[in-house]
């Protein structure tokens, strides 16, 4: 799934690698300040890297805008002047940074529309899709892990299913779901962002492969937890197997799965491209791919900022989840302060 990411969509791998990042209760203002500071740094790095890579990619923007139409010096000059491309690259970069600080993301070269409006109109359907896909993924992962962990035959069936889902191209999975549930059984509509039922199939197509990856990690964690001494203690109280798994085991198994999920959610954004196109859904994914191919700098940069922002938010969220899930991390902070 990662291989499909475009450069604009996978910023700040360093941030992911720096985990586990431990929040401490003491010195919280300092912690928050450094969090915001590193967040801003990531945003700036994402913008700068995207700017540089679009400039390094083959083909210049004027040629792409002219395409295969007639090309005359007057037209070139008019295009350069219109988009401010007649200035030195460094100047374009600085001017762009200044404009962003004023909340002005510019106008799309290709679509001729205001970028903020474009991104805002496309982010809602993408968020709906990713949220629904995440729900599907978690539901699938938890169900499959809880029901099959430590049980030999169910485990191997679930494992095979997960492996199939992970290795199925999402294009093909989408077409297959459509063929079954939309074209043949006519349960769900094929396309658009119109109703809840239109969200079901794309969410499954996008969420199932993610759920399969997380499910495998979660099952392994759960199996480890069930072998630990505390599991025997809990069993000795007469607790049923399911309650043990849900209330005690999951919590132990969740840490690596949460880390992985936090990271994979970012990849949902890039996976959304194919899902959006198969299901004829609006969304950021398609807009981004077209912008990258067409060197549509304002859109590329706006998406880079947005996805860097998403990553920063997600990693913070994952850190907070860590504290909630594992009291030892909270205690560590207290001990260090003592």
């Amino acid at each position, binding site marked *: 799934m990662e291989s499909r990411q475009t450069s604009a969509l996978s910023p700040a791998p360093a941030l992911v690698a720096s985990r586990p990042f431990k929040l401490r209760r003491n010195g919280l203002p300092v912690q928050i300040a450094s969090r915001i500071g590193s967040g801003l740094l990531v945003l700036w790095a994402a913008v700068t890297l995207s700017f540089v890579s679009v400039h390094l*990619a*083959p*083909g*210049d923007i004027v*040629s*792409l*805008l*002219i*395409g*295969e*139409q*007639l*090309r*005359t010096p*007057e*037209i070139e*000059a*008019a*295009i350069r*002047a*219109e988009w401010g491309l007649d200035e030195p690259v460094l100047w374009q970069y600085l001017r762009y940074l200044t404009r962003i600080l004023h909340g002005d993301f510019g106008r799309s070269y*290709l*679509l*001729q*529309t205001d970028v903020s409006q*474009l991104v805002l*109109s*496309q982010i809602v*359907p993408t968020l709906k899709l990713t949220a629904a896909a995440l729900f599907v993924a978690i539901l699938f992962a938890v169900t499959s892990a809880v029901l099959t962990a430590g049980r030999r035959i169910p485990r191997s069936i679930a494992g095979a299913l997960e492996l199939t889902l992970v290795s199925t191209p999402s294009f093909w999975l989408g*077409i297959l779901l*459509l*063929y079954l549930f*939309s*074209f*043949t059984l*006519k349960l769900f*509509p*094929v*396309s*658009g*962002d*119109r109703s809840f039922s239109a969200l079901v199939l794309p969410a499954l197509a996008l969420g199932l492969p993610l759920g399969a990856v997380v499910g495998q990690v979660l099952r392994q964690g759960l199996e480890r937890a069930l072998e630990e001494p505390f599991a025997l203690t809990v069993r000795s109280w007469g607790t049923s197997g399911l309650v043990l798994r849900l209330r005690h085991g999951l919590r132990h198994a969740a840490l690596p799965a949460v880390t992985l999920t936090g990271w994979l959610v970012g990849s949902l954004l890039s996976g959304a491209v194919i899902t*959006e*196109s*198969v*299901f*004829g*859904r*609006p*969304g950021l994914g*398609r*807009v981004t791919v077209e912008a990258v*191919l*067409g*060197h549509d700098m304002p859109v590329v940069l706006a998406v880079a900022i947005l996805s860097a922002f998403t990553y920063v938010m997600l990693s913070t969220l994952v850190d907070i989840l860590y504290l909630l899930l594992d009291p030892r991390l909270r205690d560590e902070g207290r001990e260090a302060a003592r």
Partner: protein
Amino acid sequence: MITRRTLLGGAGATALAAAAPSRVGAQTKGAPVKGGSLTWGVETEPSTLNPHLNGQAKAKLILRNAYETLLARTPDGGYVPWLAKDYAVSEDGRIYTFTLRDDVSFHDGEKFDAAAVALNFTKLKEPTYSGSISAGHVSHVSEAIAVDPRTLVLKLSRVYAPFLDGAAGIEILSPKSFASAQLKAGGPEIAGTGPFRIERYVKGQEIRFVRNEAYNWAPANAGHQGPAWLDRVTYRFLPEAAVRTGALTSGQVDVIEGISGNDAGLFKDNPEFTYQSALNTGTPYTLYLNATRGPTEDVRVRQAVLAAIDVERVIRSVYRGERQRAWGVLTPADTDFYDRSIEGSYGFDPKRANRLLDEAGWSSRDAEGFRTKDGQRLSIEIVQSQATLRDQRDVLLQAVQAQARQNAGLDLVLRYVDAGTYTTRQNDGQYGIIPNSTTTQENGLTIYFHYLPRNKGGSINYSRTEAPEISAWLDEAASTLDTKKRFEIYARLQRFALLEQAYGLPLYVPEDQIAASARVKGVGFRPFKRLPENAYDIWLQG
């Protein structure tokens, strides 16, 4: 001195076509019923909804619902009145006078008059508004004058034969639109005069039109007069062919366009559906050989490529008989200028291909069976843009590659590239072959873009020919209004370019396909330009 060309009483063919409504493929059995909504699954989402700035042939069927032009066309290339009731060309071919209808209004309530049309032409000449388009037809206009509200005069700087075709096809927007913030992206604020107006656009999903109740100015050769039958029509963007097919068979959309050769059988001879196809005008999907670089610089190698490939067989097997083999520099749909005497005059001849390559010095073979000269393999790089890779063209190119290897020991290397790489390669001439097809709105004009030197207007001259005889012929053809003479010149160019110089190998004729549920009536193709028509004449049975 002005020669008046009366549209309705004039040239026989024109009058005939105007009297008998003749839409290609239109089914008009039973009495049309007013009302209902239609959903149409389309492949391509318009990059902009402003018809002036949108160059996508595939977007026309959508935009023509809201935007209209001065004249309409007949199947044989004649003109019929639309927003203009009549037109005249001065004897020296430099002054065009259009007499406009006086009962037309724009969607935003503004009156359609000569000043509005003149403003459209003036705006289009500004590079800041229309970019490269300003260098096209309108660049020949020196002045656009509204003589009175109903009379528009366009003065040309010099005679330019394709002008009427171009000018008659420019969509007229309301003057207020040019002040709108939506101008470049298009949208509901950009008002036209069409039978429908844009109601709602959801980027990435659909565009919905609602009937214009005031509409009463359909072209004389439309299926009916007065407002459209449908209350609403929605175009849903479904980029995947398999998804469009499934959406139609499961009844989620009423009409689709763009049907793969494999799926056509589902709708053909099936009473629940109708299926129709029409060849595109413009140029066929052609392998253009770079005559200025690499092995293809040698005319013998180029001729060998043309002789080495059994085009007939490749097309039949890749498209299961659903696409037509191409022969000329234009497609047969260009009724004015296609010279069919080229058909069968060249073609598959492996003996000739091998003889030519031996003569050119590519006589030894390497371990893999490819021809070599001085230790170099006979490799020709095919650079295909991913953006135009549709209609199973990847499969087609692989079949061509296999044939070239098998029949003549030619090594065709396939490269699928992104838009940026493609423009760079195209501009620098770093390729052996570029495959391409163009669907133009202007008959014959595409020849200029393909065969003039690149710095003199040949923006898509992929063979990179600068042959002086071609330029001389094209100059001659552009300065005459005599269609027969233009035909002869283009025919001479076709023989020179394909038979003598082998600048390109035409493969197949691109076409449009429409499949619809049987209750959808009146769906079909535009006369002459052959692209799918808008929803004006469509009605729903029962």
